[in-house]
């Protein structure tokens, strides 16, 4: 059995199903991320694992024992809350020392440990102050120190970077990564930000309305999304999906779309699809589209530039291809004019064919 294992976990609030039939296996030492939009049930999932909520269905195993009915303090978990949850009437020191004092550690040992973790997250200067005098980043660091103070089998982090400004977010992101490497601890991380999820995690579970859509390593989720939701939730800008019709002529397959026609190769016989549907949607990542000024080999599909979003490190083009909106990412130094007619080049990847009836990609 895995380090953390959830079996058929279900949680309801009145009539709302916050979690439905959640199965999850997390290995020891893994950096595992739950990714999903607001209200997907991410926080509920963490609080259920922590024991703050009782699930109606399912079981939770952690570190070789069942913890479903245990009190939070008996589970050996640590949780960094979304809003820090620092005790406002206690100093930085007392906050960090809390898990140690509650666990009745030897006072000398407590002091040493508090200073150790405070140094680890760079907050030794905050030990004598009250949380309301901390900046947002400092609050977050003290909360991390508290979460790390006592040893735990599982460290859970609930959107720890959400309310911080962009620079701090990037800095702390790298710190989490190295903390995880240095501690060798199992991290369960929750976020709505796909960049955080992709950059930090060993594996990601995509959660939507209480259900898990897909579990896999970041690159796999990015390259081979399972369904429409995952495809459009991951990627910035999200994946383009264009309707196409599958045509077969003497063994050669083609995809006929509005304004383009592409050869389709490498689509093998699929176990779940004995007959491949005719009407499909083709997924195209915006950064896999070539954009050229002149019609050329591999870029022959005409489109019009509607809007140029310059982001500095890259440029996003909003284009119209035969009446449909499509986005492409181009290098930052190329200049494009709005209204200009350009030529696009992209390939039909057999991995990215979506069946609009089931909203799942052909597998």
């Amino acid at each position, binding site marked *: 059995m895995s380090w953390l294992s959830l079996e058929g976990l279900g949680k309801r609030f009145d009539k709302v199903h916050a979690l439905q039939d959640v199965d999850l296996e997390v290995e020891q030492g893994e950096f595992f991320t739950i990714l999903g939009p607001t209200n997907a049930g991410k926080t509920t999932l963490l*609080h259920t694992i*922590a*024991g*703050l909520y009782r699930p109606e269905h399912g079981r939770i195993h952690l570190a070789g024992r069942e913890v479903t009915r245990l*009190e*939070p*303090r008996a*589970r050996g*978990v*640590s*949780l960094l*809350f*979304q*809003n820090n*949850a620092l*005790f*406002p*009437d206690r100093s930085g020191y007392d906050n960090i020392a*809390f*898990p140690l004092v*509650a*666990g009745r550690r030897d006072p000398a040992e407590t002091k040493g440990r508090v200073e150790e973790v405070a140094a680890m997250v760079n907050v030794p200067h905050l030990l004598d102050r009250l949380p309301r005098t901390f900046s947002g980043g400092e609050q977050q660091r003290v909360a991390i120190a*508290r979460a790390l103070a*006592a040893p735990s089998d599982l460290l859970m982090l609930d959107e720890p970077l959400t309310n911080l400004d962009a620079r701090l977010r990037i800095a702390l992101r790298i710190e989490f990564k190295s903390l995880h490497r240095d501690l060798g601890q199992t991290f369960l991380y929750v976020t709505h930000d796909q960049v955080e999820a992709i950059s930090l995690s060993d594996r990601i579970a995509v959660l939507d309305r209480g259900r898990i859509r897909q579990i896999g390593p970041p690159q796999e989720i990015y390259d081979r999304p399972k369904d429409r939701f995952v495809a459009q939730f991951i990627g910035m800008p999200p994946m383009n999906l264009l309707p196409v019709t599958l045509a077969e002529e003497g063994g050669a397959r083609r995809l006929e779309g509005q304004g383009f026609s592409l050869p389709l190769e490498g689509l093998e016989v699929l176990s779940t699809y004995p007959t491949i549907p005719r009407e499909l949607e083709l997924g195209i990542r915006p950064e896999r589209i070539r954009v050229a000024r002149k019609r050329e080999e591999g870029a022959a599909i005409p489109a019009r530039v509607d809007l140029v979003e310059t982001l500095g490190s890259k440029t996003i083009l909003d284009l119209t291809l035969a009446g449909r909106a499509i986005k492409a990412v181009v290098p930052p130094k190329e200049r494009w004019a709005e209204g200009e007619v350009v030529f696009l080049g992209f390939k039909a990847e057999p991995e990215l064919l979506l069946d609009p009836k089931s909203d799942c990609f052909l597998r």
Partner: protein
Amino acid sequence: MRKRNPWLTLTMRAAVIVALLISLLPIFWLFSTSLKPHDEWAEWPPVWITDSPTLQNYRIVFFPEDAREVAAEQQGSLDYKVSGSAWKAFQDSAIISTLATLLSVAFGTLAAYSIVRFRTGGENFPFQFLTVRMMPPIAVVVPMVALFSILRLTDTYLGLILAYTAFTLPFSIWMIRSFLEEVPAELEGAAMIHGYSQFRAFLTVTLPLAKGGILATALFIFILNWSEFLFALVLTSGDVITVTLQVANYVSASSGKLYGVQAAMGTISTLPVIFFGYLIQKHLVRGLTFGAVKR
């Protein structure tokens, strides 16, 4: 800060002053009357500030045995013979009000916590509690008297303490609930994950943060208990006597109500309330506005 229209500021200040006058006038009148000699008590036009202030009224309150002497000094125009003892009244009121307040706040806090954290009783439960207070107390007085007689609780401390606790509990729950709601559940969650039981987390994390509100609630309940009259009147018959009952005792057979003495007793009985109010004043503003005003 938005720049205010000076006229608006002026109007608002004037309104505050009027409101202040309206609420302070009765207290002034009470104090002023307590210092008046007997012939000015019910004068028309009213005497606002007496020319010949006297402490005789207070003397009657504290030393009822001097009544004959006082009457003699005033050439026997009034009969100051009164029943009951102010000392005993203060003592009884203090015991009953304090214990009833403690019970009410203790039960109220536990009940409110249960409602806030576990949604005990569902959405409308707190409202149902408040409806108890919508019934005029007089409507339940008769069955209460019957019930208390059977239980032999009439004319006892315990009887009044229980009656007061029961009748202030809805307020207690309602007010404390709003303060507990302001303390994020995550704080307790953090304490529980890091090694506390739920009850210990409630006692050591949540309760200290709601302290101000609970103190304000306690003061509010104490004032209700201290100034209660109806239950004290019908549930006692002489053994137990509260401050409000004692005020009503200052009536003499031959001369009617002794307004000056009643005013003296009233003035003294407001002192503890003012004293406690002063002690917890920094919590009061937030407490009595139900947390609507941010510090």
